[in-house]
């Protein structure tokens, strides 16, 4: 064990609000994920899964504790450094999709590439390929309002994958998909994980989907209640 883990959370807490209305969403989370792992995160609603994912994706900062990415203390970075880290390494699928309204599936998918300096034709090509992976190439010109919930979710997945991230953070990526489509997405993620070593952290409520992962982490009340990896150790 010489290499540091890709991702490491040490005693991370997150408090929302102040004073009497303050709410502690994370109460000391320790988590370590190695490069190339495929981790499923489960747990009841409100247990802090999305909060932890947001911190991992550098979209939010911990209230206390340490977050190390490749051994670097992320919580000590400034905004700009965090933004660069996010751009370089993370693809994020939001629980609520968060697509740009009035913007075609293709342009939504291509959005991360604009910020990575790709030119128009290269963006189009990569975005179409990503849409093809999730089976939506026929819907490239449609705006989110013209897509079903499941289709929007798949656009969000395509957008997270298009930039070839090191880590895919997917918050319930199959929540709105029928089981067949959900399995299709899982096969895709498994293939990406196996073939190109994509590290995946995926929140899911469905044991069927979690079964695709190598490891399952269970949250309860802002803490990690169970972790396959620890049991194995």
């Amino acid at each position: 064990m010489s290499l540091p883990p890709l991702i490491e959370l040490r005693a991370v807490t997150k408090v929302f609000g102040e004073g009497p209305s303050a709410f502690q969403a994370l109460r000391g989370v320790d988590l370590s994920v190695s490069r190339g792992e495929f981790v499923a995160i489960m747990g009841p609603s409100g247990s802090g899964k999305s909060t932890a994912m947001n911190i991992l994706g550098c979209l939010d900062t911990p209230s206390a504790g340490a977050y190390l990415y490749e051994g670097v203390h992320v919580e000590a970075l400034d905004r700009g450094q965090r933004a660069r880290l996010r751009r370089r390494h993370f693809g994020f699928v939001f629980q609520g999709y968060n697509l740009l309204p009035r913007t075609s599936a293709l342009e939504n998918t291509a959005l991360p590439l604009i910020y990575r300096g790709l030119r128009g034709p290269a963006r189009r090509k990569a975005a179409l390929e990503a849409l093809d992976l999730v089976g939506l190439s026929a819907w490239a010109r449609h705006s989110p309002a013209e897509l079903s919930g499941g289709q929007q979710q798949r656009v969000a997945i395509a957008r997270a994958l298009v930039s070839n991230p090191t880590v895919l953070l997917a918050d319930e990526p199959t929540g709105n998909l029928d089981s067949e489509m959900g399995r299709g997405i899982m096969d895709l993620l498994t293939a990406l994980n196996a073939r190109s070593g994509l590290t995946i952290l995926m929140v899911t409520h469905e044991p069927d989907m979690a079964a695709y992962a190598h490891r399952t982490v269970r949250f309860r009340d802002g803490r990690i209640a169970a972790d396959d990896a620890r049991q194995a150790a």
Partner: protein
Amino acid sequence: MLASAIVLAFQAIRRNPARSFLTVLGVVIGVAAVITMVTLGRGASRAVADQISSLGSNLVVVRPGQRMGPGGERAPQFRAADIQAIRARVASVTAISGVETAGATVVYRAHNWSTSIVGVDNDYFRARQLRVASGRLFSEAEQRSGRPVCVVGETVRRELFGAADPLGARVRVKGFSCDVVGLLTSTGQASMGMDQDDLVIMPLKTVQRRLAGSNDIGQIVLSVRDQESLERAKAELTQVLRERRRIARNEDDNFNVMDTRQIADALTGTTRILTLLLGAVAAVSLVVGGIGIMNIMLVSVTERTREIGIRLAVGALEGDVLLQFLVEAVTLSAFGGLVGVALAAVSSIVLTRMMAVPFAFDPAINAVAFGVAAAIGVVFGYVPARRAARLDPIVALRHE
């Protein structure tokens, strides 16, 4: 980075036509209103100045009362003997005439026209440098006995006679008939609703007797030899009139004497106030336009904050977002400003023509209005975006 910011800015403008349109509209209205108002005000000032300069520079006008214009105590009018006294005692006078004015409707066959009837002696034409285009001035006999003859202005000729020859025609004015003996050369000046060619000139006595019904003279107009003799002539004239009106040493004049420059100063003073007033109204519309822009920007800030959150989450840096919003705001504001300047040019030309004032293009006010409106657009398009871009992405995404 700039290239992608431009791409993104134009995408955003195209995707939100209503918001883009309203922003542009706010700038257009603000810019167009200010420029139009100020241009009209300046045109009006110019019109007054042109009109005054056409009077000739050696003209002196004497009126009863202490100041020019209505108001004040009723001072006695002038008499024919006052004019004779001035002519006799003020050496540099080259022409002097009493002026008595009345409004009346002039009728020729089936046509009638409301106009001013101005009663004067032939000297008035000389003092004012007016000429007849055809026909003649009044004869000595006509002036002495107040014969019903008249010289008509170009506007009156057009309205009453059309294509017909006015000379020798007989028109009716109030209760009497009047022969047209001359047609005044058009001064070609119509400013601010005051048409200089819309008048009928008769001998002073004719107007006194047949229209005013008294021997009063409402105004004395005279010209002096040259600019140098002006002040001295005014002093002498004042002395003559004080004596004749029996004004004690310690009393103020109960008449006023003004030369061309003083009249010009008084009138341009009024139009300057008018211009300021118009400018103030216009500034208000600029502010209202600005508030419109702020409003639309603030209304869209929720949606845009979420949008910014998404952009940050998928890899935008703060600078990317700021540049996009800056390009967007500058594009919309500059476009609105240009349309506003163009609209102002069109509306200024139309309105100055309608109001018969000269079109006085002022580059400074165009630049200022454009600059202010564009600045408002940029500031209110950009500042909320900057605030949003500094949020944590997740906070921006949760904004409601």
